[in-house]
């Protein structure tokens, strides 16, 4: 229930309809059990587009397009704080989806996605979760003690996300990459650039960077600082068998992304 009375938000009982089921067979979103067997693309990462430094009133900004996902990140800071002295910068992350986007509701804790999207001011549980995950991934990379009495704020906007084809973990993968890029763009001193890898596996085959719905046993997202091979974030759902192989594959993917980021940054 919205409590914002300051804007004209439209009728509260308006309901956003679902899309009916198409009778055309070819655009169905069915789970594809043959995805693993066919090994369509077991080793490649989907193409992505990235851009940095296009917002002049933020200290750093980045934009990533990948499959159905579009993420924008702005870094504000280091900015001075008004309250009492702190030895090192405080770092905060806020992730927001544009209001019409359906968030991953596998847990069904974020309420009804059929209701009027206008006027939501707080963050949903999913947004909070992503914010705190990304924060814990990036904190080890930033030299916070270089910036006493300051805050560094990272604002993530999820512009497009198709929760039916792309899992939340895949989205978080690209959010993490975009956030690292924005941090580099802001010039805040970092130890290493955090990149991530996301895989799913059925126990035998592994698919890197899955963006189509396939049945899976393990879904594993791992974020790395590649310089010393440190794991700064791990998020595993499903089966825990062969976790070390999964981490290894995520590492490969994160290195590939890192290579791409390096060449992008060198060429700009």
């Amino acid at each position, binding site marked *: 229930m919205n409590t914002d009375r300051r804007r004209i938000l439209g009728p509260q009982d308006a309901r956003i309809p679902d899309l009916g089921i198409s009778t055309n067979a070819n655009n169905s979103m069915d789970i594809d059990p043959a995805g693993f067997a066919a090994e369509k693309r077991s080793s490649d990462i989907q193409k992505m587009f990235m851009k940095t430094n296009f917002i002049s009133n933020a200290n750093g900004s980045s934009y990533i397009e990948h499959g159905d996902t579009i993420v924008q990140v702005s870094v504000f800071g280091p900015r001075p704080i008004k309250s009492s002295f702190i*030895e*090192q910068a405080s*770092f905060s992350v806020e992730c927001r989806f544009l209001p019409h986007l359906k968030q991953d509701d*596998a*847990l*069904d*804790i974020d309420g009804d996605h059929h209701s009027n999207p206008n006027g939501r001011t*707080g*963050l949903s*549980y*999913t947004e*909070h*979760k992503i*914010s*705190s*995950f990304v*924060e*814990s991934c990036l*904190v*080890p990379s930033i030299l*916070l*003690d270089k910036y006493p009495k300051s805050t560094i704020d990272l604002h993530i906007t999820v512009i497009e996300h198709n929760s039916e084809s792309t899992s939340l973990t895949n989205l978080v993968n690209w959010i993490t990459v975009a956030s690292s890029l924005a941090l580099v763009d802001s010039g805040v001193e970092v130890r290493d650039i955090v990149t991530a890898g996301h895989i799913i596996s059925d126990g035998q085959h592994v698919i890197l960077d899955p963006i189509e719905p396939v049945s899976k046993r393990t879904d594993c997202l791992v974020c*790395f*600082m590649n310089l*010393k*091979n*440190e*794991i*700064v*974030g*791990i*998020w*595993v*759902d*499903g*089966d*825990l068998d062969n*976790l*070390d192989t999964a*981490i*290894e594959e995520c590492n490969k993917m994160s290195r590939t992304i890192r290579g791409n980021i390096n060449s992008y940054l060198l060429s700009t």
Partner: protein
Amino acid sequence: MLLSPAERQYLYDSLVQNPPIRPDARNVFQCRPLEATTTFLPSSNGSARLRMTDGAECIVSVKSKVVKTADTPNLLEVDVDVQGYRDDSNFVATLKYNLSSLLHKNFPFEALKLTSRYSYKLFIDCIVMSNTSYPLTIISMAIYLALKTTKLPKLVSEVDDVNVEEQPTFSDDWEDAKTLGEATGSDFQPPVFITLGVIGSSLLFDPSLEEEQVLENGLIVSFYDGKAQTPLQNINLALNSNKNNYKGLKSTHIVSAISMVNKYCGMIIHALDTLIDQDEGDGQVF
């Protein structure tokens, strides 16, 4: 209590020893002592109150409702309330997200099925009265105790209502009520979260507030069905203190966390079960 730099260094040095020397002389795989009471809320289907030696206290109540299965996407709802934190704070929201995800992934939902149309829906309400260290473990253990002792009324109407629509009716004798374990016909053990602190090459179960301040990282691992499960995630446990020490993990940390959970969590579950047995029939809290 925040530690001074010297205290922090002293604690850090003793914890990176092999084996680590913990301030309260605990072993790495030991949780802090706790005391608990179950089934003390008369209007709940299951309840538990859990207290730790550092003053942390958590109350969990499980209530049930009969719903139409087709209209309810979700038969479990967890709500978390922590004293001193706003409900829309990141701290509370992340706790709620993690607990919901734990229970959704590891729960015998068939135990809630009543008829072909109707099911029970469980509402799990957690209140943390006070906490010093990260409260995930204590909430999760309280949920374990509450779910384990939850009793649901016995259905007396027909189970098969595919053709005839019928409102389910229940036995009015509370003695007939069944626990979730009896409903599934197996030894039901709800899932729990174990919080592990990472420091040097060591892993510490259930870190205390002082330990959290010097930790290099934190892990949360689920335990269900006799072994480590997902969700498995890393997490920054020290929310209010400096993040000086926060570092990345090695993959060996994760592998050994899983094997430690596999090895020792059975004992924790066994201890909780014993607690329930001892508590049976008492019903007095204070």
